[in-house]
Structures are given as C-alpha cells and as structure tokens.
C-alpha cells in the first residue's frame, strides 16, 4: 500500500496554506458488530462541510462506536466511510485527517500543555508548530498556562486544552465525544457558547456526540437522533422537534402526548381523526401514515386548557376536547404542568404558560384546545413509550 493518497497527506497540504475548512463526511451502510452484539446497524449519514452536527441518543445506542469508526480507532464490520471524495474505510487512525476530543480528554500527562497541543503538528512536521500551538491556546484563552502539566489544570481548562489540541490541526472533521460531560452545569453552558463560537471561527465540520438534548438543540445546525444502533431521524433541531417521524424522537426530544386514533377520512390537505368520542384533524403532510389506525401526537405546550364552556383561543382550525379532569398540577413558576384525564382518550400532559394567574386545581374540569397544524401522525404500530426518559 502506498501512502500517497492517505488523509494525513492531504491534511499536510491543507496545513501548507490551502484554505482551511471541513470536508463532507459520508457514512454508507456502516455496520459494527462486537461478537454477536450489533452496536451500529446499517447506518447512513451525510454531513456537509462546515456543519455543526450533533449525534444525540441514549446511553449505549452506539454514538461512541460511530465516532470511533470515523476516527479510525475502530473498523466497521461492513460499509464505507468517505471524507470529501476519498474512501478512508481502510486507512488507520493516524492516516486520517480527523481529530477527536475525547470524553475524558486523554491529555498526555508527561507533556506540557503547549506540547500536548503541538503533538499533532509535530507528528506531521509542520514547520511553525510551536507558534501555531500558541495561537490555538490563545483561541481557548489558555496561553498563560502553556508551561503547565495537564494535572495542574482544572476540568474546564483540560477540556479546552483537549479542544485546542484537536482544532490546531485544522482537521477535515472534528469529533467531540461528550466533551462537556464532566463539567458542572454553569461551565457547561459557558463552554457550549465557546464551542459554537470556535466552530464559527475555524469553520470546521464538527460532529458532536451527546445525550443531552438541550445541548444538541442549542448548539447544532443539524441533529441526528440515534437509537439502538440506528438513526431515527435527521434534521435541523426545530424540524425534529416540530415534526418527529418516530415515537422515539417524539418522546426523546422533549415530551409528547401520543394517542391512538383512526383515520376517518380526508378533506383536501387534511386527515380527519377519531379518538374515543373525540375528533381532530392534522395536515396530511404531517402524517407518516394516512389511513387506518395511526398514533397521533401533540406537544404539551401546544395544548391550551380552559374552563368548560369558555371560548378557546381560536375557532377555525382548532380542536376542542371537552370533559377533561385535572389529575395533577405542578407549578414551576414560568409555567404550570397539568396531567389531564380525557375519558375515552387517555391522559394528556398540558404545559400552560403562566400568562394569567389562574391555576387549575386538582379535580378541576377543563376543556383542551389545540391548533390542528401542530398535530403529527406516526405509524399505527409505534410503541408510544419508546424513548420516554425514565427518571
């Protein structure tokens, strides 16, 4: 095998002055087995250059395994990995122009902060390695600590060194494996902003793994929700939240009320649904399945609860479900969260913003209203409990 086309070499060319920036990343039917265990199952993914891409999923769903295959630390059982136009499936980690920020940072304890950051540059014999390493440290505001050892830094500082050590190489793809997992909430929020800024400045393709949905949604342009080795849905965060296509995504990203309904007919672009004695509608384009039994969904904050008989927030295009009874009330300050039992349809979560001071007590009778444009339809055989967080 010759080394002429390997990724590290093209990276060297980038380092020599070609415009920095990410490259497209494509995974084609990537499968990874550990013995009998299927960790990643026939995964297809395309991340355009320069994107901030988040891979979101519960623990053990195969996120780290996927990253490790992109980095070359693990080899797929089947499938291809392409960076730019180049098939890197058979190359090894040190030959790929990809860098990782490891979950526990993995800084070299025997090297100074500066030498940690310069490590990748020195391996590729970049001429002004030290100067560039200092620049990268300045980017993460740690240039004053360059002579220290990793053990002499705080967790947040170590995290930033790990980031500088990866970013300084201007890789085509930068992988971040829960880089903020070990930090406390405040530092986490602060680092999220910094990461986003740095990504903006350097323009690299970032692939950020996390199981924190808020982190994924606030930081990424594109989010892929992963479950049990497969990708459930990919899209911009707003789209994933607004129009989940599987019950897992509906429950894992935020909360959803999912209920079984029958498609009773259609008028124009709308599907008519019956659930228990009640009726609602949804745009046909928002339904994965358009006949027979479906699972309909509506987000809790999209439901408005009013006293029985009082006018709802709208007339045309609104569904009214009457006869609800409040089972529990939980006042959080900004909003009040109700669980409402609707005879014949089940329980609904309702998040009500505290615009007025009225709070319904437990046992109160309410009518529920929602805008039919917010309803989404899932396949009738979905597991309505999939992706519900057990707390």
């Amino acid at each position, binding site marked *: 095998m010759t080394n002429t086309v390997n990724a590290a070499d093209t990276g060297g060319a980038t380092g020599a002055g070609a415009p920095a920036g990410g490259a497209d990343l494509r995974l084609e039917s990537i499968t990874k087995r550990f013995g009998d265990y299927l960790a990643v199952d026939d995964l297809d993914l395309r991340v355009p250059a320069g994107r901030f891409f988040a891979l979101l999923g519960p623990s053990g769903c195969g996120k780290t395994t996927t990253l490790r295959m992109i980095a070359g630390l693990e080899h797929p059982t089947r499938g291809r990995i392409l960076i730019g136009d180049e098939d890197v499936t058979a190359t090894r980690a040190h030959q790929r122009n*990809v860098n990782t920020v490891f979950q526990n940072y993995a*800084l070299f304890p025997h090297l100074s902060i500066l030498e940690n950051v310069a490590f990748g540059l020195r391996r590729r014999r970049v001429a002004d390695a030290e100067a560039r390493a200092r620049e990268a440290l300045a980017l993460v505001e740690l240039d004053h600590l360059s002579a220290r050892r990793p053990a002499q830094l705080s967790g947040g500082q170590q995290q930033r060194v790990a980031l500088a050590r990866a970013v300084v190489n201007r890789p085509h793809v930068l992988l971040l494996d829960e880089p903020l997992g070990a930090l406390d909430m405040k530092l986490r929020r602060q680092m999220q902003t910094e990461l986003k800024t740095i990504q903006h400045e350097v323009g690299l393709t970032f692939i950020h793994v996390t199981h924190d949905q808020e982190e994924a949604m606030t930081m990424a342009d594109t989010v892929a929700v992963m479950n049990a080795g497969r990708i459930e849905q990919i899209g911009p965060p707003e789209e994933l939240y607004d129009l989940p296509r599987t019950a897992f995504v509906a429950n894992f990203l935020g909360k959803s009320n999912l209920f079984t309904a029958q498609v009773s007919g259609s008028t124009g672009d709308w599907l008519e649904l019956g659930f228990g004695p009640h009726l609602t509608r949804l745009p046909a384009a928002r339904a994965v399945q358009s006949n027979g039994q479906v699972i309909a969904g509506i987000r809790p904050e999209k439901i408005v609860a009013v006293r029985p008989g009082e006018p709802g927030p709208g007339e045309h295009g609104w569904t009214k479900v009457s006869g609800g009874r409040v089972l529990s009330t939980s006042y959080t300050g900004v909003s009040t969260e109700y669980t409402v039992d609707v005879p014949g349809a089940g329980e609904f979560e309702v998040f009500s913003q505290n615009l007025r001071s009225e709070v319904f007590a437990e046992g109160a009778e309410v009518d529920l209203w929602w805008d039919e444009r917010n309803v989404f339809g899932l396949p009738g055989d979905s597991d309505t409990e999939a992706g519900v967080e057990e707390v």
Partner: protein
Amino acid sequence: MRKFDLSRWFIPVFGGLAFVYLLVPIAYIFVFSFNDAGRTNLSWRGFTLSNWQNPCGAPQVCEAFVNSLQVGVIATVVATVLGTLLAFGLERYRFRFSGTANILVFLPLATPEVVLGASLLSQFLNLGVELGMTTTIISHIMFCMSFVVVTIRARIASLDPKLEEAAADLYASGPMTFWKVTFPLLVPGIVAAALLSFAMSFDDFIVANFNSGPFTTFPQFIYVAATRGIPAEANVIGSGMFLAAIALVLGAQLWRYWRGKRVSAVG
C-alpha cells in the same frame, strides 16, 4: 488538666525508634570504616583515615567489588531490556499458552534461591559451560528479568489506553506512539525496576556461590573474609555505596523540586 494526647508523642517516638533500628547497623559499618583495625575489624582500636585514603588496600577487596559492579550493570541492562519487551508481549498480546507463560515468569521469583542456584549449577555442568563471570551474569539476568517483567507489566496494565488512541488520532504511527507516549510514561517504572535489579544482583550471594566458580563477587568475598576477619576497606566500600545511594535519592528529589518550581514559576 490537659488531656493526654497519645498521637502527640506516639508517632514521633516509635517512628524515631524504627529509624534507629534500621540505621544502627549502617552507622556501625560507617563508624568502623574509620577504625584503625589490625587483622580483624571487630573491636574499636582508634580513629584513622587511612582506610578511606586507600580503599583497595586489602587484598582482593576492590577486585571483588569491581566484579560485582560489572555483573550488576550487565545483568541489569540485559534483564531490563528483555524484561520490558517480555512484559509488553505478555500484556498486550494474547497467544496460545499465554496463560502458562504468565505463570512461568513468576516461577524464578517464587523458587527458593538455593534451589535456583543448585539447578542452574547442574544445568551449566551438564552443558559443559565453564563456571565464571559469564555463568554468574546469566544466572542474575534470569532472576532479575522475572522481577522486571512483573513490575513493568503492572505499569503497562495501568496505562490509560485512551492515551495511545489519542496519539494515533493525532497522526502518530505505531512506533511514534510508542516512543512519544507509551515509553515516556513507562520510564519511571523501568528505572525503578532497573535500580532494584541492580540491588538484587549486587546483593546476591547464594546463586553466585553456586555458579561463579573461581570468579568472586563482593558478597562472596565478604563471606569468605568473615571467617578470617573482614578488612576495614570493606566497610569503606559499603559506606561509600550507601552514601552514593543517598546522593542519588537526594539528587532525584532536588531535580523534581527544581522542575516543579520552574513549571509553577512560568505557569
């Protein structure tokens, strides 16, 4: 009345006694290196510097000392290099009989030295190898190597595998990863193993006694001399080694202190 505080005096007093207990024999050797000894160096006969001025004064004492140094250095270097490689092989690769091999490396450490010495002797005799410096070195390499393997394996096992992955991720090839990350992290363990190997080799009497033939190591020299009376020059050499060891430890401490200071001064 003040409460009787046990820990206040207990630790200093018993700590002090333990130190005295450990250091008295060494102090004795040191003091008697200045004894104006005649044939035997057992009773105090007056102070002199002549032993220190001419440590090789007594017949053969320096020859034995140099012999032991040579054996120690060669055995340590060979045992450390081979032992480190072996430790890597056993720790990083799974092969047929690797379980058996794991137990076999422990054997020389677990075998009583007399048995080891005697069986090595019969081996050399059967192979027709002439006893001497070479056979002494071979025997020492054997038991030192077991020791090196065991110590360094523990270090390798405790290395964070993520560090090597991080190196590979940062464009270091396999050999580069070894030289830039794995090896530097193992150096303290390797140095410790080498120092202890040297100490074990220098200290060995039993195995050498079986296998050295006409060749005489320092412990053998002392042992034989003890029947006639140990010359004060042996005390000089013993004290000198003790002082050298202390200087080494102090030097290492100072170096670490200095390095720590420099880092925090810049940082």
